């Protein structure tokens, strides 16, 4: 069973509240879910929706057809009518009956008032939705209890009443789909992408987060800030993104793992700082949560448009890591890994996410596990042969110099953004310059060894769909659909993007004739990158750049058209 519920209305009407409640109930019941959060760059009015796909098996991408539409206003219904399945149902927030028998009118506010508080209208809506799905009222009560008990018995009771009223209002309605509801003791967790990213930072022992608010990245820092009282962690809102990146460089230089999160515009402002981290070999983690541009673009929408930008950002050349996780689990692990690798190699690490990953909700199987230790790569005086002669940029074959911290012993640490000698002081010498460029570049082979190869799924297929980042779930599901229709299709998903795993990719793609790029940009950035690094081109690109998440169906449709022609 796999159904999609879409809750839609104006910003400020509580769409997310309804959706979040449904999600909690699903988690209680041991079901799985993937929900996308669609909203405009405004606080009230307009149009937005929260679209939940619920299934008894794990789901990783949204579905394009709607089984149950909860329309908080009439306009919403009109906008989404065409997405309805023929036997789907609409719950419309109004008193008057509608002529259309697919539509049930339920006055959410009115019922909420009956329940004793107009503010419970979202609970009415949730109750109605769950009623349609025939979820047991007990489960609903249990979830309401965990949500509202702490706010007082009265509020809790009113919400139970509201849920019941919504529930009852639909009791005579038949709905084609439903679940085998049970209370489950599953370890599954309900999590928003940005929450997974923030937790991954904690798992990477992050101590300082400096940032400037920017959608869709702000959620990550808000999540992180929640932990700042209990953890050795400071979240500081900077005056601008330039300050943010320079603060985390300062923090890291003085010994704590540090990160920032921003979107493309903020990342643009950080590019100079990126180079500072590089030449001073100061580890930092930068999350660039992509949204459509150029410039301000579409602040609350999704995109995969900054791959080449982040690989090449800042003047001159230097090693850096670039990752693009494809799921909340991967986001959690990638963040923790980014902190580890950034410190191990003393290079900046960039994690590319996007609005889709950040703002979507997922129920994931099992839980997340905290790493057993945080391996640090910092020397104390005792570990240095002669602390008085310590040189921060001492050259050896690995290119990674032993790192001491300022004012933590007799070792004097000197770092400069000018080209410098091994002792950190400025040098314009020709040989020193060559040595230092070579030193920094000499990290790359080891860094590349840390890179995971792209993840294959039916890797031997004739048609290979190649994607990266947040579209992982959609691409895999498209492969499943295509294979079920007898297409010989498989996929590779790229999470580790730079240093590019050249050899691995060449091996995978060599001789493949039908390589199909699936990307959320207009120029097939990964496709261009693969060609740059391996010489191998692609034969088709399925590109979606309207700012909306990629649905498996988008891929399937374009694939078939291509397969038909080729």
């Amino acid at each position: 069973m796999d159904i999609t519920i879409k809750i839609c209305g104006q910003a400020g009407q509580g769409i997310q509240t309804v959706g979040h409640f449904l999600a909690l109930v699903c988690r209680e019941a041991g079901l799985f879910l993937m929900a996308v959060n669609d909203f405009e760059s405004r606080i009230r009015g307009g149009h937005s929706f929260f679209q939940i796909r619920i299934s008894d098996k794990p789901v990783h991408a949204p579905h394009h057809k709607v089984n149950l539409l909860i329309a908080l206003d009439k306009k919403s219904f009109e906008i989404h009518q065409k997405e309805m399945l023929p036997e789907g149902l609409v719950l419309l927030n109004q008193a008057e009956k509608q002529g259309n028998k697919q539509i049930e009118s339920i006055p959410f506010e009115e019922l909420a008032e009956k329940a004793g508080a107009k503010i419970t209208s979202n609970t009415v809506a949730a109750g109605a939705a769950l009623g349609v799905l025939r979820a047991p009222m007990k489960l609903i009560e249990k979830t309401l209890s965990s949500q509202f008990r702490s706010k007082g018995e009265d509020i809790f009771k009113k919400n139970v009443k509201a849920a019941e009223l919504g529930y009852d209002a639909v009791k005579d309605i038949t709905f084609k789909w439903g679940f085998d509801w049970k209370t489950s003791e599953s370890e599954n967790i309900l999590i928003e992408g940005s929450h997974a990213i923030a937790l991954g930072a904690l798992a990477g022992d992050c101590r300082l987060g400096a940032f400037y608010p920017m959608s869709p990245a702000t959620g990550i820092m808000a999540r992180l800030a929640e932990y700042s009282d209990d953890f050795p962690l400071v979240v500081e809102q900077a005056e601008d993104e330039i300050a943010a990146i320079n603060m985390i460089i300062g923090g890291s230089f003085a010994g704590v793992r540090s990160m920032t999160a921003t979107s493309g515009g903020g990342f643009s402002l950080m590019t100079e700082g990126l180079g500072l981290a590089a030449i001073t070999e100061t580890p930092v983690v930068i999350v660039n949560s992509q949204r459509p541009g150029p410039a301000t673009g579409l602040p609350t929408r999704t995109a995969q448009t900054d791959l080449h930008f982040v690989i090449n950002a800042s003047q001159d050349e230097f090693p850096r890591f670039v990752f693009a996780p494809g799921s909340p689990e991967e986001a959690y692990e990638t963040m923790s890994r980014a902190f580890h690798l950034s410190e191990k190699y003393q290079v900046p690490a960039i994690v590319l996410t996007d609005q889709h990953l950040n703002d979507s909700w997922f129920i994931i199987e099992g839980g997340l596990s905290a790493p057993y230790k945080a391996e640090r790569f910092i020397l104390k005086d005792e570990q240095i042969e002669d602390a008085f002669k310590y040189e921060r940029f001492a050259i050896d074959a690995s290119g990674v110099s032993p790192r001491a911290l300022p004012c933590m012993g007799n070792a004097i640490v000197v770092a400069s953004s000018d080209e410098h000698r091994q002792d950190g002081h400025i040098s314009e010498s020709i040989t020193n310059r060559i040595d230092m460029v070579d030193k920094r570049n000499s990290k790359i082979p080891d860094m590349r060894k840390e890179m995971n190869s792209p993840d294959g799924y039916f890797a031997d297929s004739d048609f290979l769909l190649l994607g990266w980042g947040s579209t992982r779930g959609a691409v895999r599901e498209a492969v499943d659909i295509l294979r079920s229709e007898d297409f010989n299709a498989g996929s590779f998903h790229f999470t580790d993007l730079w240093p590019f795993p050249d050899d691995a990719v060449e091996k995978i793609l060599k001789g493949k004739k039908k390589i199909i790029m699936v990307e959320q940009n207009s120029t097939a950035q990964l496709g261009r990158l693969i060609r740059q690094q391996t010489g191998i081109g692609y034969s088709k690109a399925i590109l979606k750049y309207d700012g909306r998440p990629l649905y498996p169906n988008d891929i399937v449709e374009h694939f078939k058209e291509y397969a038909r022609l080729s």
Partner: protein
Amino acid sequence: MNAVKDIFRSDYENQWCPGCGNFGILAAMKDAFIKLGLAPDQLLIVSGIGQAAKTPHFLKCNTFHGLHGRALPVATGAKIANHALNIVVNSGDGDCYGEGGNHFIHAIRRNPDITLLVHNNKIYGLTKGQASPTSDMGMVTKIQKQGVISEAFNPLAVAIVLGAGFVARGFSGDKDHLSELIQLGVKHKGFSLIDILQPCVSFNRINTHDWYKKRVYALKESENVHGDHTTAIEKSFEWGDKIPVGVFYKEKKTTFTDHINTLQKGPLNSVKYDREKLQKILSKL
């Protein structure tokens, strides 16, 4: 420094022009640090880019010589990571009030316990003589062919109205006085600004050493440590025939890192990773 060993001596070759005011500042810094009982390994100097910002190369200390204009955020980040650090920032008038103007404002608002020395030569030295935010109106340069047409930036007044707790002006030509100011600044708990009048012999032909010598006078002790905005601001606008140096404004304020709850348990960089704590959170999701 005659008798005392120059523990801050750097083996690195100095790159300033002979006669530059920066030498006076460097000498005053060393003197102040020694009198404060600081050793090189107890001192972190953060700087931007410019002649002024090269300072930490020319004395022995932990150094972060960062980007043009961006010393203050680096210093703030380092202070968060380890608030036990003694941090001094060397910056120029272009570095701090031009490229770095926004950080200047907001560092003052935060009030981290950092001492900011601005080598104010009223010119862009390292890039060979363009006007800076503090250049007086009318100054002609290769870029400002018509002379500067923007109002000169008054760092002291701006710092005072932004709520800085220690605002002073020094002169590179008076080492002892400057050393005293630096000592007071470092001892002040919170953000301290010392704007330092510094002749640039290569590019600023107006505000020369002699020009200053004739004009500079020290604020009287009684005028010094006053918590009175109005008089301090008025004094900060005195410029021309008489130019006051000294502490213009002083006020005790809670510092940035003292405000932050988490840091009251000790420096951030000295806490161990705690798996249990994280696992508890993860398990409760």
